[in-house]
């Protein structure tokens, strides 16, 4: 393949002053080393990963106690434990922001305007205010019996209250898990049910698309189905009134955040240093089968990985304002939260990117001074299709774009350069499973059209060749701190092993296809497994097929991602259904299937196409083969066709008119 063109070059002076360059100098001076290229430095970080993490811990000056030795117990990714004798505070480090003064802005909270012609609602929260709020909330939660080992769950909007409660809960040693309001109750309960949470946080109301939604009313059903809950805290505007309305019908103690904080003292807090491997976040990875799996991420691993990504790969720090288009159900919310630890401010937005019009988010970025803006290809596409030109909207302060959630096609690099500005477009990719990224930006390297700038420091990312001739698979060969501590309720580790290590023993198998270039750049080529990534949202096919199969007309179902240039983000979901004898797939049934999926999961889960086939493709071992179906939908002869029991079905799939790549979305 020819070398793609360079679409952005770092300014040499800025590159030399970057935190990455400074950290490299720190490592060189500390160990008497000299790295003449990025490749050398990266290679050293992989080969000497223990030294890397020890150096990074020292350089990043995270407040800690105990011993930084051993850096890592064990040599296998599956069993390794980082810094078992070290203690730190995620909350304390995030609030401190590298010693930011109380007067510095920490959070710029934005809410969609009340009317199409009204201004965006913006509120700035300083470090001092956030520190005091978090301390007071923690004091109040503690008084309610919330402490280490408890789980606090949230159905919440992306705003400053949610951030404050999350930091308070994790500061106490509780584990935080959150879903965004876009998720239907059934899907929320599939996630929160197994967590046996002690406390529930709900944003009373949120706005989206010009409509005010009463989330508390809907959350009552969730609260009633979680018998371990002792407390529900209502946040956001009008929380007091909502509590007054609903307290009598609530199954346990319901309190508005201002009431909860009322009896506390306005003091800052010396955050307890907790074990490095203290459970911090529970995230959900929707697998190919069954309910979403709950992944337990540790405090130290999350903090170090995020600090590394933000400071070294993103050069984020004081003076920056980070905005990522996310809800608090996606790991980019946690990633954004950790951005505070660099000294940067973070910008939150509760509302639709399309309200009052397609320029809303760009105007928000201009108004709040966002310097690093992240979104998904679906959002770039929406901006382009709406003929919005961000560079005309006062976004000159932007210094970088980040894109994740879906493959980023080459042409988006041209679009960003023409319509946003001469700034790097960083294609970053990783996932919930590692609460971080395998490929990232780099302030010292150019951006090649269509490529991620580099592989993440200290991660031994490899492209494993497929003997059958398919694309290479992304695997990781050495331990890393943000590997999950475990899957919840997986007492013998067998599900953890099956999810990440069974395919290629000794290697972390991530489930993505990747191309690594000789220049050290990378391209993510889509999912290797059946997980769907559509419109920037990761979706487990089981969440779709499970609902479809409950309809009496549907005998079996398979959800597959199809690359589709006209769809938002460049791909769409195709649901293949096998119907009961005598049932025909008419529009009414398609609508019933889609409605059931929307109401049971979310609008993002709804397939663009529903198509009937006589049976689903299965391997000779009797396993469903989403991969074969995906390749057939792409018009290809599946790599594993010889291993398919019913290959004639693949020909039918390839010929489906409604699933043709030329068929409208």
């Amino acid at each position, binding site marked *: 393949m020819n070398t793609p063109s360079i679409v952005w070059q770092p300014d040499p002076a800025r590159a030399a002053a970057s935190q990455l360059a400074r950290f490299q100098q720190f490592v060189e001076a500390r160990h008497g080393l000299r790295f003449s290229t990025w490749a050398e430095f990266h290679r050293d970080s992989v080969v000497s990963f223990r030294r890397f993490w020890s150096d990074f811990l020292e350089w990043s000056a995270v407040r800690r106690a105990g011993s930084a030795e051993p850096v890592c117990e064990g040599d296998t990714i599956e069993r390794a434990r980082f810094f078992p004798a070290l203690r730190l505070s995620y909350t304390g480090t995030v609030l401190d922001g590298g010693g930011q003064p109380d007067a510095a802005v920490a959070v710029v909270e934005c809410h969609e305007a009340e009317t199409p012609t009204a201004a965006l609602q913006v509120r700035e929260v300083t470090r001092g205010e956030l520190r005091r709020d978090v301390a007071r909330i923690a004091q109040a939660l503690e008084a309610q019996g919330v402490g280490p080992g408890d789980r606090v769950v949230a159905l919440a909007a992306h705003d400053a209250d949610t951030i404050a409660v999350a930091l308070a809960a994790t500061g106490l040693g509780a584990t935080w898990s959150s879903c965004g309001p876009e998720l239907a109750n059934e899907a929320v309960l599939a996630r929160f049910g197994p967590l046996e949470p002690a406390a529930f946080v709900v944003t009373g109301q949120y706005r989206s*698309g010009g409509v005010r939604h009463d989330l508390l009313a809907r959350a009552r059903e969730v609260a009633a189905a979680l018998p371990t809950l002792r407390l529900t805290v209502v946040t956001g505007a009008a929380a007091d009134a909502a509590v007054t309305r609903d307290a009598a019908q609530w199954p346990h103690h319901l309190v508005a955040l201002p009431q909860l904080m009322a009896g506390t003292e306005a003091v800052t807090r010396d955050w307890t240093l907790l074990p490095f491997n203290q459970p911090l976040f529970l995230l959900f990875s929707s697998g190919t089968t069954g309910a979403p799996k709950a992944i337990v991420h540790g405090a130290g691993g999350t903090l170090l990985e995020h600090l590394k990504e933000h400071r070294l790969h993103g050069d984020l720090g004081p003076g920056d304002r980070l905005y990522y288009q996310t809800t608090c159900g996606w790991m980019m919310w946690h990633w954004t939260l950790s951005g505070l630890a660099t000294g940067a401010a973070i910008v939150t937005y509760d509302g639709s990117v399309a309200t009052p019009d397609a320029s809303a988010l760009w105007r928000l970025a201009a108004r709040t001074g966002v310097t690093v803006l992240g979104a998904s290809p679906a959002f770039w596409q929406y901006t382009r299709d*709406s003929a919005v030109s961000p560079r005309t909207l006062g976004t000159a302060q932007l210094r970088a774009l980040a894109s994740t959630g879906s493959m980023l096609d080459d042409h988006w690099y041209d679009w960003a350069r023409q319509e946003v500005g001469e700034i790097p477009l960083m294609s970053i990719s990783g996932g919930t499973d590692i609460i971080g990224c395998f490929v990232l930006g780099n302030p010292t390297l150019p951006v090649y059209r269509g490529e991620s700038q580099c592989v993440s420091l200290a991660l031994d990312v490899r492209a494993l060749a497929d003997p059958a001739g398919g694309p290479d698979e992304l695997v990781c060969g050495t331990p890393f701190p943000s590997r999950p501590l475990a899957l919840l309720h997986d007492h013998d580790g067998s599900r953890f092993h099956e999810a990440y290590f069974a395919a290629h023993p000794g290697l972390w198998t991530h489930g993505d296809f990747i191309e690594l270039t000789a220049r050290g750049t990378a391209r993510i080529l889509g999912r290797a497994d059946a997980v769907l990534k559509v419109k920037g949202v990761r979706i487990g096919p089981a969440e779709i097929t499970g609902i479809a199969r409950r309809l009496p007309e549907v005998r079996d179902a398979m959800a597959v991602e199809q690359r589709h240039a006209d769809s938002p983000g460049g791909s769409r979901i195709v649901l293949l259904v096998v119907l009961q004898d005598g049932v025909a797939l008419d529009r009414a049934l*398609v609508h*019933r299937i889609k409605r059931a999926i929307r109401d049971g999961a979310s609008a993002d889960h709804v397939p663009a196409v529903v198509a009937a086939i006589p049976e689903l493709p299965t391997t000779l071992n009797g396993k469903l083969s989403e991969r074969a179906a995906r390749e057939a939908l792409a018009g290809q002869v599946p790599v594993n066709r010889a291993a398919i029991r019913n290959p004639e079905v693949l020909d039918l799939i390839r010929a489906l008119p409604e699933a043709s790549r030329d068929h409208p979305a």
Partner: protein
Amino acid sequence: MPNSDAELRRLIIDWLDDQYHFGDAEQLIRDDEQSFLETGVLTSLGFVQLVLFLEQRLAITLDRAALTRENFDGMGRVVRHLRAHLGPASA
């Protein structure tokens, strides 16, 4: 190719059903002048998708500068705007 205003309406209703409302679009749109945005029929995000669909289905190009609420926020407005592009319906 849809020709009459009624056919254009049907085309849009069917698209709304396939994309967002799954059989409920007809019920949601009570009259031609009802705002799509203010009554949850369509978001701004959906407007763009609708425009792309209409361009493809009707083989026309719509000026993005004309994609205003005046021209698109309601069934009657969309049909009138399309009619201006397509010319009078043929018999």
